[in-house]
C-alpha cells in the first residue's frame, strides 16, 4: 500500500506543469462500446494540433501539448481525467460526452477553465448570461431537432399535421436532451410525438424496432452514438423502414455507422453542422506533415471521415480562439481566463476557414457574451451506399429561434435559480 502511494506521488511530481506551452487536454474514449465513434474524433483533434506544431511551430510560437486521457464515456473516469489534467495548465476542455459535460460545467466554472461542447452537452449553455465558461457553438441539440423537423416538413409537403414522429434515443443525458423541443414542436406543428429509449450500450434494439414496426411512424429521428448507431441502421434495414424517413443527429451520421448495413443503409439521412468529405487542403497537409511523418494519433486511415473531420473542426475552432487570445493580450502564453474571453469574442469568417485549409467547411458565426451557441445552422446529409459517401442534400439552414429561444431561456433560468447565479452581460 505504502509503495503504491509513493509511486503515485512520484508520478504526480513527474507530471508537474510544463510551462510555456498551450495545453489542450483531450478526454477521449478509445475503449468501450462508444469507441467506434470516439476514436476518429480523438484522432482528428490530436492530428490537427500535431499539424500546427509540425508545420507552423505551434500557435503563435507556442507548441501545443495535447494530453490524452481515456474516459471510456464513463463519467467517473471523466471527472478523474479532469482533476488529473486541470493543474497542468489546461486551457480548454472538450469532453465529447454530454454526461461528463454535466459533471464538469460547475467544476470548470468554479476553476475558471472554459469548456467547448461542440454540438453536444447542455443545450441551454448557449445562454452566456448564465453559463459564463461553457460554449456550445456553432450548434446544439435543440437546433438539430428543429432543423430535422423542418426537413421532415418539407418532405411531407409543407405540413406535418396528423403525422407520427418517433424519437429513438440513447437513454441518457445525451439522448433525452432534444425531448422538450420536440414536444414543443409537436404542439406547434400538430404531429404526434413519442420517444423510444435505448439503454446503454444499445447492442440490442429488437424490441425498439418491433415497437416502431407496430406503430408505423411516418418519420424517425435518432439520437444514438457508438455501436448503437450501427445496430439501429441495421435494424431499420431489417424491418424495411423507409430509409429516407429515418434521420440521425450529427453524432449518428458517420461512415462506420452505415457501412455495416451495406446497401440496406442507402438513403439514410443525418444532420451535419460542417462539411463532409476529404476534399479540403488541410487534409493534404495532415497527410504530409502528420501521417507520413509517423506522428498520427491513430492509424491515419480515418482522414476525411465525418467524425475525424469533426475532431479537426473542434481543434480548428480551439486554435482560432487561442490565436485571438494571443493577439488580444499581446502574449503567446495565454491563461484559461484569456482563452475564455477570446472564445466569447470569437468570430469565424470564411477567410479564416480558407486560411486554415478548410474553405466553406462550416457556417460563419459570431459568439457574443449573451449567445455562446452561434446561429444553429445545420444541413441534411444523405448516405449513398453505392458510392459509400455522404452527400449534403440541403443548404445550411438555421433553426427556429422562436421555438428554441424560449426553451433555452427557461432551462438556463432554472439552472441559475438552482445555483444562485446572477446574470452577466448587463
Amino acid at each position, binding site marked *: 500500500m505504502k509503495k503504491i502511494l509513493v509511486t503515485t506521488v512520484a508520478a504526480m511530481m513527474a507530471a508537474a506543469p510544463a510551462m510555456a506551452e498551450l495545453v489542450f487536454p483531450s478526454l477521449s474514449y478509445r475503449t468501450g462500446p462508444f469507441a467506434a465513434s470516439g476514436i476518429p474524433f480523438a484522432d482528428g483533434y490530436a492530428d490537427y494540433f500535431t499539424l500546427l506544431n509540425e508545420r507552423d511551430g505551434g500557435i503563435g510560437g507556442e507548441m501545443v501539448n495535447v494530453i490524452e486521457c*481515456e474516459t471510456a464515456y464513463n463519467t467517473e473516469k471523466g*471527472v*478523474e481525467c479532469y482533476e488529473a489534467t486541470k493543474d497542468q495548465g489546461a486551457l480548454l476542455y472538450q469532453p465529447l460526452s454530454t454526461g461528463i459535460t454535466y459533471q464538469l460545467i*460547475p467544476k470548470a466554472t468554479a476553476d475558471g477553465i472554459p469548456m467547448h461542447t461542440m454540438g453536444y452537452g447542455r443545450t441551454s449553455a448557449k445562454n452566456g448570461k448564465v453559463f459564463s465558461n461553457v460554449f456550445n457553438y456553432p450548434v446544439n441539440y435543440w437546433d438539430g431537432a428543429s432543423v430535422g423537423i423542418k426537413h421532415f416538413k418539407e418532405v411531407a409537403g409543407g405540413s406535418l399535421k396528423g403525422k407520427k414522429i418517433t424519437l429513438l434515443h440513447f437513454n*441518457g443525458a445525451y439522448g433525452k436532451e432534444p425531448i422538450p423541443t420536440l414536444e414543443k414542436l409537436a404542439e406547434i406543428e400538430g404531429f404526434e410525438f413519442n420517444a423510444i429509449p435505448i439503454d446503454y450500450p444499445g447492442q440490442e434494439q429488437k424490441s425498439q424496432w418491433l415497437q416502431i414496426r407496430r406503430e408505423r411512424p411516418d418519420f424517425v429521428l435518432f439520437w444514438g452514438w457508438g455501436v448503437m448507431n450501427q445496430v439501429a441502421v441495421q435494424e431499420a434495414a431489417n424491418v424495411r423502414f423507409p430509409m429516407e424517413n429515418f434521420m440521425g443527429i450529427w453524432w449518428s451520421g458517420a461512415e462506420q455507422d452505415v457501412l455495416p448495413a451495406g446497401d440496406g443503409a442507402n438513403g439514410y439521412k443525418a444532420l451535419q453542422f460542417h462539411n463532409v468529405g476529404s476534399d479540403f487542403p488541410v487534409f493534404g497537409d495532415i497527410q504530409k506533415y502528420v501521417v507520413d511523418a509517423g506522428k498520427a494519433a491513430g492509424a491515419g486511415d480515418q482522414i476525411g471521415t465525418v467524425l475525424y473531420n469533426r475532431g479537426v473542426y473542434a481543434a480548428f475552432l480551439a486554435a482560432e480562439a487561442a490565436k485571438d487570445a494571443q493577439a488580444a493580450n499581446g502574449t503567446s502564453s495565454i491563461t484559461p481566463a484569456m482563452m475564455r474571453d477570446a472564445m466569447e469574442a470569437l468570430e469565424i469568417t470564411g477567410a479564416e476557414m480558407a486560411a486554415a485549409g478548410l474553405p466553406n467547411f462550416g457556417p460563419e458565426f459570431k459568439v457574443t457574451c449573451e449567445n455562446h451557441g452561434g446561429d444553429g445552422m445545420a444541413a441534411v446529409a444523405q448516405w449513398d451506399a453505392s458510392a459509400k459517401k455522404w452527400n449534403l442534400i440541403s443548404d445550411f439552414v438555421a433553426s427556429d429561434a422562436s421555438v428554441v429561444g424560449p426553451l433555452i431561456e427557461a432551462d438556463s433560468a432554472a439552472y441559475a435559480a*438552482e445555483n444562485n447565479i446572477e446574470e452577466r452581460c448587463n
Partner: protein
Amino acid sequence: MLYREAGDFKTSYAKDNQTFPIKFDRVGYYVALIVAFLVIPFVINDYWANAILLPFLIYAIAALGLNILVGYCGQVSLGTGGFMAVGAYASYKLMTAFPDVSIFFHVILSGGVTAIVCVLFGLPSLRIKGFYLAVATLAAQFFLVWLFNRVPWFYNYSASGQINAPERTVFGIEVTGPNAEAWATYLFSLVFLVASALIARNLTRGMAGRKWMAIRDMDIAAEIIGVSPLKAKISAFAVSGFFVGISGALFFAVYLGAAEAGDSFGITKSFLVLFMIIIGGLGSIFGSFAGAAFLVLLPVVLKVVGVDWLGWPTDIVAHLQLVIVGGLIIMFLILEPHGLAQLWRVTKQKLRLWPFPH
C-alpha cells in the same frame, strides 16, 4: 518481535472483547485515525480528493453495507447499484425539497429511505436462496434504474434527466457543489465512513451479527436454535441498505455532483462493489476497506504507470487495465478465496512468531 500479545494482560471482559486486542494493532488504529482526521485534511488537494480518497471512502461504505448482507448474512445481492441510486435520488429530492436542513441529516435520511426499499426487495429472500435470490436482486437493480429514468418527478423534471447537487453546507462550510474545498468533502465522507465502520463492527460482533452468521452458515439449524429467519434476514437487508444508501447519497452529492441513474448506478456498479468484498474478504470489516482501496487504487496506479511514466497510448493502457483486473480477480479466487483480509490475518499470525517461528 514488535507484534505480539506477550505481556499484554487483560483484566476485564471489556478489554478481552475489544476490537483490537493486541496493543500494536490498537496503536496503529489510533495513529491511522489521527492521520486521517488531522494530517490528510491539511495536505489534500483536488486530485487526491476526487480521484482517490473520495471514491475510496464512499466505496468502502458501500462495501461495508454489501458485506453485511453477503458476507455476514449470506444473502447474495446484485442490486447494490440500484440501491445506491435510491440513496442518491433520495438525497437529491431531500436536498431540493428542504434546502434549509443540514445535508448531514439528508444523507442519513437517504440511508433510511434506502433501507426501506432494500427491505422490500429483500422480502423474497424468505422464500428463495442463493442464485435465485441473486436474480431477484438483479431485477431490483434494473427496475430501480428504469424507475429513476422513467419518472420525471425523481429528477425534478429536468430536460436531460440528470440530477445536480446544489450547494449545501455543514456548519457554514460547503461540502457539495463545485466550490466545496477538497478537505471539507473528504472530512465529511470520512466521518460517515468511520461511523459506519464502528456501527458495522459492533453490530456484527453482537447478537444481531451472530444471528446473521447463524443464518449464513445453516439456516435450518439456526431456526431450530431459535433464530427467526424473518427478523435476521430483514434486519440484514435493512442495515445493508442503510449503508449502501448513505454511500449512494455521498457518491452523488459529494463526489460526482451530478448523476444519472443508468450511467452512474448501472449493473457495473453492483459488480464492482461485489468484487470489492470478494477480493477484500467476505465477512470482514477490514476486508471491505481493503477491497475498496484495491479496486479504487489499482486503475489509477496502472494509468499513472502506463500513461504518465511509460508513455503508452491511453487505449492500450485501458485495455491492459481490464486484463490485469480480471486476472487478479481470478488469481485471488484461486490463491486466496478469503480475500485480502485472510492474507492480512495470515501475515499477522506469522508476525506473532517472527523472528522465532518454532
